[in-house]
């Protein structure tokens, strides 16, 4: 049963601390997406990668957020320093980048609370 996994599932931290979220895409998928869900904005794209290369990170606050794929089985999203407004659920999704119209499969999310 192939699934996207995310760790941690929950994170509570204090303002100013560094937060790192991890995602393991489905084996064989070569596109990875990071989305954020908030009450006000709904689900919004932060960044996405194809074959580990970043293709679009226009939705991400560049001064504090960074996204990387150290290898094909791991994607990370880092916030440094974190702020209370970063509190949200962060979802990772993966897909087959070779398909013209791909379906994305989501992980369970990391629920972040910044105090």
């Amino acid at each position, binding site marked *: 049963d192939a699934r996207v996994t995310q760790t941690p599932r929950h994170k509570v931290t204090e303002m100013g601390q560094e937060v790192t979220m991890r995602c393991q895409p489905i084996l064989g998928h070569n596109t990875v997406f990071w989305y954020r869900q908030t009450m006000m904005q709904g689900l919004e794209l932060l960044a996405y990668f*194809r074959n580990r290369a970043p293709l679009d990170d226009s939705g991400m606050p560049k001064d504090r957020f960074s996204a990387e794929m150290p290898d094909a089985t791991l994607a990370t999203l880092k916030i440094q320093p974190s702020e209370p407004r970063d509190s949200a659920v962060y979802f990772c999704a993966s897909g087959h980048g070779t398909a*013209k*119209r791909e379906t994305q499969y989501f992980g369970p999310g990391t629920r972040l609370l910044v105090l």
Partner: protein
Amino acid sequence: DQQVKQNSPSLSVQEGRISILNCDYTNSMFDYFLWYKKYPAEGPTFLISISSIKDKNEDGRFTVFLNKSAKHLSLHIVPSQPGDSAVYFCAASGDTGRRALTFGSGTRLQVQP
């Protein structure tokens, strides 16, 4: 500027009846549309999709209809079951190489037993 809109935040139907969830979009470049279902504390789960070359796609109890001229799509669930109670998100992507999805704000469906 919301490019994908779900104007009904919630919908309540009786078990066994039809549920119709609606979605409108403004970007004419969108050519692939998906519906996701989301339970609390879980990630969105893919339900059904349709490309712009079709006007209908069916999968069991779920049917998606696409009206390109009206930039409107809908998801029909027949018959509705209590287990269908969830938040349903409409999403769209464009044929420009940008594969990311643009999501609507979601509709919470409650199926009453």
